[in-house]
């Protein structure tokens, strides 16, 4: 750890990476929401020939021509993908695949053929050379600042400004393009403007981090944020946070003397890892929380079924009390009924009687009564109003009793006014 310090060189690299990642991550939120993630991927690959041609024509690596070349090719890509779909009747994914791989291949050939003697090399296209960013400095306001940092910082400012200025339009187009059209927002214009912004951010980021990290940064922060929140404003903040973490942690790991490896590659790995964490542990949309939710639901249903079973047992005045094993066996065995039994015991809804038998406590009986009441009211409703035969009403009622709210139960009661269910059993009174 002691030789893992941050000097000014590292700080410049991290700052550059943060600007690049945040700019891409913010734009990416809209790509993810509009299901255009792969269009971002396609554009970031396809701008390569635009870059090379601009480089060949201007004979320099100045930002202006490259930016224009890349934006033109970016828009051309988006247009071609749509044209192949519309006029060639090629499916969307295939038309993307055709367009961006062909353009990328063209770019690589052009580089190898015409630009091999300069700084563009096919490997750097993929993973960039952010390590060398601090070497190429320009003077700004009396400070020596790396050129890439200035460019990417400028791109970040423009992206933030554009999002802030067109926040309402972007929101509506992202969530409801038809509403946007009826409100007079030109959805196609927003689409192509977004594509142009993606192309511009991509080309600015290209030199530093290469096309692969651009793809990671366009998609991973937005998707991670989409798992963590439902509000767009929060999503943008989270995406920015993910992008910053990828930059800092990715660089620290890559620069660690024992690894000493590709910074851009490590940043994409860190972005992917954050997404993986969100996939599993996001509070509402994560896999684990969904799993826990399902387990909790099945436990509640099992517990309520046990209460209902004990209530009906008491109601039938069977002599021998019901044992735990009998209950578990009646519910087809397994872990769930056992856990549900434990929970009911712990919650004081049931208590142990002689031997392994259990019986309802006062509070358990009240809850069981209201469940059975819902069940039987629902059965009566199904029989009376939907005309279901008697042997068909139990199963739907058994499923519904767990989900019917007290208000609906009382409405059913008021409408039916029955004292008995269709099987002739008494409907328990309201608690």
């Amino acid at each position, binding site marked *: 750890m002691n030789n893992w310090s941050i000097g000014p060189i590292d700080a410049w690299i991290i700052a550059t990476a943060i600007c690049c990642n945040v700019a891409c991550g913010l734009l990416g939120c809209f790509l*993810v929401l509009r*299901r*255009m*993630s*792969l269009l*971002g*991927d396609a554009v970031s690959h396809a701008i390569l020939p635009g870059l090379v041609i601009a480089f060949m024509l201007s004979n320099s690596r100045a930002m202006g021509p490259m930016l224009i070349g890349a934006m033109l090719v970016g828009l051309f890509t988006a247009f071609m993908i749509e044209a*192949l779909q519309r*006029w*060639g*009747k*090629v*499916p969307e*994914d*295939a038309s*993307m*695949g*055709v367009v961006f*791989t*062909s353009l*990328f*291949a*063209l770019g*690589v*050939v052009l580089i*190898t053929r015409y630009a*091999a003697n300069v700084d563009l090399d*096919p*490997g750097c296209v*993929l*993973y960039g050379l952010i390590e060398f960013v601090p070497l190429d400095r320009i003077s700004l306001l009396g400070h020596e600042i790396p050129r890439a940092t200035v460019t990417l910082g400028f791109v970040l400012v423009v992206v933030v400004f554009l999002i802030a200025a067109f926040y309402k339009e972007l929101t509506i187009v992202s969530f409801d393009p038809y509403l946007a059209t009826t409100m007079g927002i030109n959805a196609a214009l927003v689409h192509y403007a977004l594509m142009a912004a993606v192309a511009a951010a991509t080309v600015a980021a290209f030199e530093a981090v290469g096309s*692969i*990290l651009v*793809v*990671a940064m*366009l*998609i*991973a922060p937005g*998707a991670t944020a*989409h*798992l963590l929140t439902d509000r767009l404003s929060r999503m943008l903040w989270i995406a920015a946070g993910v992008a910053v973490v990828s930059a800092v942690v990715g660089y620290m790991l*890559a620069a660690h003397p024992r690894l*000493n*490896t*590709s910074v*851009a*590659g*490590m*940043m*994409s*790995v860190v*972005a*992917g*890892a954050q*997404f993986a964490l969100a*996939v599993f542990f996001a509070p509402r*949309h*994560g*896999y684990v929380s*969904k799993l826990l939710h399902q387990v909790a639901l099945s436990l509640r249903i099992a517990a309520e079924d046990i209460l209902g079973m004990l209530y009906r047992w008491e109601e039938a005045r069977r002599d021998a009390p019901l044992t735990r094993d009998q209950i578990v066996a009646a519910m087809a065995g397994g872990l769930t009924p056992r856990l549900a039994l434990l929970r009911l015991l712990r919650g004081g809804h049931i208590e142990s009687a002689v031997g392994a038998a259990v019986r309802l406590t006062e509070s358990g009986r009240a809850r069981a009564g209201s469940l059975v009441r819902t069940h039987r009211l629902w059965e009566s409703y199904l029989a009376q109003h939907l005309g279901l035969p008697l042997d068909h009403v139990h199963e739907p009622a058994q499923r519904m009793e767990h989900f019917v709210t007290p208000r609906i139960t009382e409405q059913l009661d008021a409408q039916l006014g029955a004292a008995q269910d269709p099987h002739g059993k008494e409907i328990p009174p309201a608690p």
Partner: protein
Amino acid sequence: MDTFLRLILLQDANTRVVLLGAALLGMTSGVIGSFAVLRRRALLGDALAHAALPGICTAYFVVGDKSFTAFLIGALIFGTLGVLCVSFVRTHTRIKEDAAIGIVLSSFFGLGIVLSRIIQNQPAGNRAGLDTYIYGKAALMVNQDVALIALVAGVILIVVALLFKEFSLLCFDRDFAAAQGWPAMWLDILLMALLCVCTVIGLPAVGVVLMAALLIIPAAAARFWTERLSLMVALAGLIGLLSGLIGTAASAMAAHFAAGPPVVLAAAGFFMFSMLFAPRRGALADWWRRRKLRQRIAMQNVLRALYEIGEAAGAFERPASFDQILSSRAWTAPALTECLERAVRAGLIRGRDDRYVLTDAGRREAMRVVRAHRLWEIFLVEQAAIAPDHVDRDADQIEHVLPPELLARLEERLRQEGRLPAPVPQSPHPVGEVAP
């Protein structure tokens, strides 16, 4: 020039081997890619190929040598892992497949770059073997590699041939296949597995970045030529084979050229050609068909205009002036002139000094057109309850494409009601107004 001659005369044993390998790869990818494209799995191949890179690096760590077989096994494991990740994210979270593909592709590839740089930093590190997998270097394949490729390609082609009917059903209507009791899920998995294997053996020749192109482009190009799956698969195989040959040959001629980009560009060339020149679905054919249809419609409109002018005047022999025809419809003078000239050439109209009259053949054709128009108008007024002042425009759009059987049925109905046999029924609205 010398290299070129040596190349096309296949003088080097090594060149022969490499070209054979590339051709086999191209063909197999074309065949499997056809199913992948139809099953809408085209871009999953891209994720798979990118995800394979860390597998190749891991194999290098484990085996410590440039072993072709070990690389392929590592690539297969990680590629499959990548596909599984995509399908897990798609089924268990709200993230859509496209975003999942993008993330898996980039973070796995990033991992691959990280690992390859670490290997390069090792004292004995030799990343030449790894770099070839990024953009492909078919020229480095040796006899045993090609033998392995041939074996795998043979197995894939045999499986596809045996299960051709099942796979086609799966691609066109998976739900129907499942409802018919086919093991649709297992067929799907088998298809994915074949796709994985094919992608992985393609990596040495085309590289992880562009492998997806070899799956997608030949299939998409072949789709333009035919509506039959068997033909499409065969064509895709052929296009893949030729792309592999041309691209590899091009890369072999220039020593520092990677093989992937030329192969993909060759395939893209086939795609462009197919898209433009395919006989039925191609862009040119489509343009020609539309042009023909437009011309036919314009001609029929001219005939109907002349007929209705004659009908209003009570004499078909009296010529109508150009301005009269022009004002009967919303068309431009140049378009009308061009169309009148064509009608004269076709012998449907006689024209002199800007005055035009229908010939006998022209009048017969005009009667047919007007009949179709008015029958359809009557149908719209009486059956679809559309106001008489609206039917002219509606009928106008459809009269040119009404099938004869439908006209016969409409006619039969009017005849039963005793409103025919006039050769041309009465128009349900006043004739002679300028149509909107």
